[in-house]
């Protein structure tokens, strides 16, 4: 992983931004050109980019990153309830809260490394999840999840005691005299954050998040993180105190997750504890390794692919399959439908698990490594064709 040149990085960034902005058009032929799904791509892209800053650069495998996602969602919904349906305060607050939460957890968990670190993060995420379901119900609204409600009438606002089941306060909205009808929708200074405006809000943040991740990876700080992954012990004897580097990476990564969680709440103002479960943490790990941990584009690619196939595969049912296999004779059709049926619809997770295994077994560097291998082979062929001496070592 050598240091790419500035020009190359700028080209990468511009292409990335272009693709994201054009995504609604580009992905329509694939049946993914609608805002709800595109928002998911962007949000989980941000989540995975953040996870990759920790796992991809330092090699520290956190199994509790969903906790920050959940915290981000809760923080946002609270901002919607207390201040305003405008997304700006919610996003900022969520990132800050997730950052503080990550600092606390990182401070403790980063005392250990390797498998111990993974288990400590898992333990913290499980604790957060369990607490969100039980004693923290006044903050999280337990199983029902935290939701925005109607605005409390302004004459009652003075002696208003916030009640999760009743009405919301929204001090700022009240002060500016925003009129609401029914259950409110999040907005950016009046632009409703649903549909394409919602996607483009997420898209802009995704582009910023991606650009920032390039900066981090190419910075002195990023080099130290890579050195930690490569040989932490040596780095200590090189005069580097690795702990603050790791904590910083952990916090940055937690803030990314908080941002993603906040955007989940922006597109759908509801926060539930299941977002913090360790299966959710596992999902972001999968996204990152599927695309390629430690690469710039990989995590976004992985997140998009998984959310895309989740969407496609979950929608396929037996009728669709029967249609698909209609060219087969009846008996074969039945078998084909039964077998394929295991992997689609509700069986999507089975496909996900298999994909996980196949990637780790055959392509630990993820899809980006796969592309690299193909590109290298192509290049080498070209070189030998022109009878040039190739110094490239065999893979």
């Amino acid at each position, binding site marked *: 992983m050598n240091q790419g040149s500035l020009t190359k990085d700028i080209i990468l960034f511009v292409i990335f931004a272009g693709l994201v902005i054009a995504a609604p058009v580009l992905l329509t032929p694939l049946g993914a050109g609608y805002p709800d799904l595109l928002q998911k791509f962007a949000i989980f892209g941000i989540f995975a980019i953040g996870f990759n800053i920790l796992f991809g650069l330092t090699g520290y495998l956190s199994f509790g990153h969903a906790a920050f996602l959940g915290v981000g969602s809760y923080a946002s919904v609270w901002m919607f309830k207390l201040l305003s349906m405008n997304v700006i305060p919610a996003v900022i607050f969520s990132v800050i809260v997730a950052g503080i939460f990550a600092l606390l957890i990182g401070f403790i968990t980063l005392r250990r490394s390797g498998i111990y670190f993974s288990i400590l993060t898992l333990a913290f995420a499980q604790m957060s999840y369990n607490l969100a379901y039980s004693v923290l119900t006044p903050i999280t609204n337990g199983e029902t999840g935290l939701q925005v409600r109607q605005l409390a009438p302004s004459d009652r606002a003075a002696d208003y005691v916030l009640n999760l089941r009743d009405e919301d306060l929204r001090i700022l909205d009240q002060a500016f005299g925003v009129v609401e009808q029914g259950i409110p929708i999040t907005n950016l200074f009046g632009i409703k954050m649903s549909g394409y405006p919602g996607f483009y809000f997420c898209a802009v943040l995704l582009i910023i998040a991606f650009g920032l991740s390039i900066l981090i990876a190419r910075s002195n700080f990023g*080099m130290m993180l890579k050195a930690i992954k490569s040989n932490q012990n040596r780095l200590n004897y090189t005069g580097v105190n690795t702990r603050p580097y790791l904590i910083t990476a952990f916090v940055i990564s937690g803030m990314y997750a908080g941002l993603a969680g906040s955007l989940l709440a922006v597109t759908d103002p509801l926060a539930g504890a299941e977002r913090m479960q360790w299966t959710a943490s596992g999902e972001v790990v999968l996204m990152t390794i599927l695309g390629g941990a430690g690469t710039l584009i990989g995590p976004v690619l992985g997140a998009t692919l998984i959310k895309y196939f989740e969407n496609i595969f979950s929608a396929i049912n037996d009728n669709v399959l029967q249609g698909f296999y209609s060219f087969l004779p009846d008996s074969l059709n039945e078998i084909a439908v039964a077998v394929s049926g295991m992997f689609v619809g509700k069986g999507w997770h089975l496909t996900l698990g298999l994909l996980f295994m196949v990637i780790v077994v055959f392509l630990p560097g993820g899809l980006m490594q796969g592309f690299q291998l193909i590109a290298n082979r192509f290049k080498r062929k070209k070189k030998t064709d022109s009878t040039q001496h190739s110094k490239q070592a065999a893979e």
Partner: protein
Amino acid sequence: MENIVLHVNDVHKSFAGLHALSDIDLAVREGETHAIIGPNGAGKSTLLNVCIGRLKPDSGSVVFDGVTLTGKKPYEINQLGVARVFQTPEVFPDLTALDNVMVPALAKRDGSFKMSVIKRLSREKGLRAQAEHMLEDLGMADQMQQIASEMSRGNKRRLELAMSLIQKPRLLLLDEPTAGMARHDTNATIDLLKKIKEGGMTKVIIEHDMHVVFSLADRISVLAGGRIIAQGTPDEIKNNPKVKEAYLGEEQV
């Protein structure tokens, strides 16, 4: 009397009742190359690990330039100006040779931690020039962009040396710099270390190979059974009967 850089005072260390080191007193003078030799199991590596902060002595202290090293963390010791070359080459296997040298250069300039998230590493032109120069000096101009894990053992060792030297340490600790090397490589390494010697850097070398020791060292301490049994110039050591006895059957002196 010359300035004493490293002072090992009355160090004891035992593992599970076994005395690995006892009554170790050692003074390394500024600018000298001090070799520590001894048969296998004499406690050489233990002594080095005590100096670097990896092991804590049971009693006694290690003082570097007026600062007690005992109890300090490895990165703090390095920041004081003590660099170490390991017995089995320790590099950053996933990074290029150039980046391998850039990391210690950054650590030297920026201290043990600096938040520098925005500035691109490639814009560190000054450090980069230093690092390239260092690698060229060690004859690695061709390998700057090579990934360290793909290097030969000899090159890894040279790379590690470059990583230590770029920090311009006041004291360089070398743990068997020629272990496992062919005679040809050993001679090349000796030449290299001689070159550094001309730079006036203080060095402590732990070595098994007498040839290396006698061609490099200004002074030698002989370790046997966890004690220093002799100390002096190479000539004095060569003729010391105690040393001959300790090495009997070990190796031809």
